[in-house]
């Protein structure tokens, strides 16, 4: 383990560039900042500004249409917490996350382990195949999936009927018991490829000498993964889970195109709820109210991220201990 640590560049050389006053450090890294400017401007316009404004809107009684903005204080938040539809959507989003994320992360990990084996010759082909849905538009996938899951001549139902697994077509997207989970299955399939790539990247950084040493000590495949792979990639796992969790809360495109949140709100997750209120499909839009709901939910996501950040630090510390052992 000492060898791996000694391969790092001397800490002092890293610190040299960052020493001195703030102004001097900025000046030293001026080209970095200069190249960041275009991206910062775009991020400020299209990410930071809308985010900050939505926080402001959350305190307004405002439809978003007209100029009559009124300061509402915490009224929108009171309405939000008293709205059963908000909590139902909230629960569905959390449920979606709790069910879909472990399945996707675990499946992607297993496939990544297989594809990471350099002796497996079709690895590149399968990586490409698994990644294809990632680069396909969620809306297009959603629309195509409505045909695939259609109870009338949809291929899934045809297969189920021919296999004798069902005696009448299943209305996957029109049945409240299956709508959300059908979307979840499609979401897992669509984003499976990117999670697999993350895992593959994580697996690349496990030092091969650890495996070699373990093999010399007589470790079998199971022990290699249990005692070396898993502990070494644990910090990456936290990051991958965090990214996947955040992704599982961004499912608007698929839900909207596949079910529209229905039937009767059965698949209405938070984003669809926010959209419905912000753009008023059934009445005057309530941008202030929708912003409050979004902010409230956003705080939840931040909370999850913080917990995971804590976990990440713990995992990194454990990994360092292992490397130094």
């Amino acid at each position, binding site marked *: 383990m000492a060898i791996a640590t000694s391969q790092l560049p001397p800490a002092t050389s890293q610190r040299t560039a960052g020493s001195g006053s703030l102004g001097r450090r900025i000046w030293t890294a001026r080209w970095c900042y200069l190249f960041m400017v275009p991206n910062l401007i775009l991020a400020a316009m299209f990410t930071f500004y809308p985010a900050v404004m939505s926080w402001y809107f959350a305190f307004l009684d405002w439809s*978003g*249409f*007209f*100029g009559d903005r009124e300061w509402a204080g915490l009224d929108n938040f009171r309405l939000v917490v008293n*709205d059963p*539809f908000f909590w139902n959507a909230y629960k569905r989003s959390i449920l979606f996350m709790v069910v879909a994320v472990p399945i996707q992360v675990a499946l992607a990990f297993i496939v990544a382990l297989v594809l990471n084996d350099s002796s497996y010759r079709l690895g590149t082909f399968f990586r490409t195949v698994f990644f294809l849905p990632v680069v396909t538009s969620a809306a297009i996938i959603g629309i195509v999936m*409505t045909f695939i899951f*259609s*109870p*009338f001549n*949809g291929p899934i139902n045809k297969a189920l009927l021919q296999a004798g697994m069902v005696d009448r*077509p299943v*209305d*996957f*997207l*029109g*049945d*409240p018991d299956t*709508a959300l989970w059908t979307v979840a299955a499609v979401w897992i399939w669509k984003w499976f490829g990117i999670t697999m790539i993350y895992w593959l990247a994580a697996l690349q950084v496990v030092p091969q000498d650890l495996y070699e040493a373990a093999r010399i000590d007589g470790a079998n495949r199971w022990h290699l993964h249990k005692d070396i792979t898993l502990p070494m990639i644990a910090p990456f796992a936290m990051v991958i889970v965090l990214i996947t969790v955040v992704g599982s809360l961004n499912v608007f495109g698929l839900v909207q195109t*596949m*079910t*529209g949140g*229905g*039937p*009767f*709100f*059965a698949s209405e997750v938070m984003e669809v709820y926010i959209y419905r209120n912000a*753009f*008023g*499909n*059934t*009445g*005057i*839009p*309530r941008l202030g109210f929708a912003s409050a709901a979004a902010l409230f939910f956003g705080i939840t996501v931040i909370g999850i991220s913080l917990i995971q950040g804590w976990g990440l630090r713990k995992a990194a510390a454990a990994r360092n201990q292992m490397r130094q052992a």
Partner: protein
Amino acid sequence: MSRSLTRRHVLRTGVAAGAAVAGSRYAFARAQEASPAPGAIMIPDNGVDLPTDDITFRWIDSGDLKALFYNEFHAAYQEAHPNITIQYDPLPWTEINQIVPIGVQSGDAHDIFAMPQDVPSAQAVAEGWVAPLDDIVPNFAEWKARFPVGAFMDGVHVFDGKTYTFPQTSSKRYWTMTFSNTQIMEQAGYDLSSQRLTWDEFREAARVVTEQGQGQYFGLILGGQSADRLATFVRNLGRTSGASAGGSAGFEDIDWRTGEFVYTSDEYIAAAELLLAINADGSIFPGSMSLSEPEARAQFPNGVAGMILEGPWNIPQWQRDAPDFQFGLSSQPIPNGDVNLPMTYEETGSNLLWVYANSDYKQVAGDMFAYIGSVDGQVGIMAATGGNLRAMLPEAVEIAQSSVELDPYASIALALYDEQMRLGPMVAVRNPESAAVATERQPLQPDLGSLMQGLMTGQVSDVRAAFEDLQSRANAELDRAIAAAQEKGANVSRDDFVFPEWDPTVEFTAENYG
């Protein structure tokens, strides 16, 4: 009352004749020249000082039937004014509801737009979104005087004495006519050209067709994901069977005689139960609950169902997209008993258009509206749509019916509207300040359509209990919205929603407002 056609018979002979006279499909006619043949689109010189530079004039609305006319009209207008390019954006309402407000807020709205569905016109006027037509339509007084008495209503078209929009076409139409697949229905033993189905017969027909289809087609298809269509089913069937009601802007289903909502009426509940029974029979196309309304009507020509309850805008769409599809058109299912009342409609005019207040080309809009509101323009609308859109000017209707070959389907539909619809009261006409109530309104969750979704999918089990809850929430929300509007200074009350003298069987005309 049903007709089956292999494809559209209407060839707009009037348009062709007009084009022949002019030497091209469209023509730019001087006012002193001879009038064009009926239905031909000839852009007159109204003496308007139009831009001479190359400009792009932007126009957004919901397309469908009216796009048939606008496409021809825009082409003619561009030919008459080569420096003007018209960018026409026919988009779904969901898009309009977002694009127009964003455009207004950014100062870049379309020059002519359809008002988003949930924006009260009065509020849009008050906020300065739109320009009055008085100053931009040439010879405005003369132009306006052509429309029938009562066509321009305070609170709908006129605000503070200024006219902001005009009724292009009549809103006298309904969305639950029975369109049938002729072949399928005939095989099942039903000839809807000679028979109007009662509710019971409708259910039985759906069952028989489904049985006959053996999984290849079903009795009825509907777009259950579009909750408003489920609501319309209950509303229209419930009203004809005795629960007369009207209303708009989220406060539908009010019995004007009492000012009370009618959700708990036996008739509304029976209409809901009819749809649930058809669903329980297995007679509805599988997957209907995950189909949107446009998807359902696009599926219908594929022979997947015997019947669909829909509006007239399907006629040209199916004729264009599925020319070999044979379909019939007849009344919506009629009540089982002796009571068969007309439905109520509000003649605000359909397809209202508004001119963006900050448009640089308001005079172009005025010039266009001058033509659309002329007799020639109105005949042109009926000619281009085969009569599926009905002109507002009686003279134009007369000319079109006598001189332009109309789509036979349109004739059937027009006869149904005349027979089954009556003009109802409008709160906004009696008290324009009621727009403030519409602004304050918050949507009911769940509303009638959503509840029907819940009932159809088994998530809600008790129709009456659900409708009683809806009634209670509707009342509470109306009272709350009125109180909120009052707080902001609007002179409104629940009494504005009561018209004791209303008779659902006769027209409620301007004189009835007293």
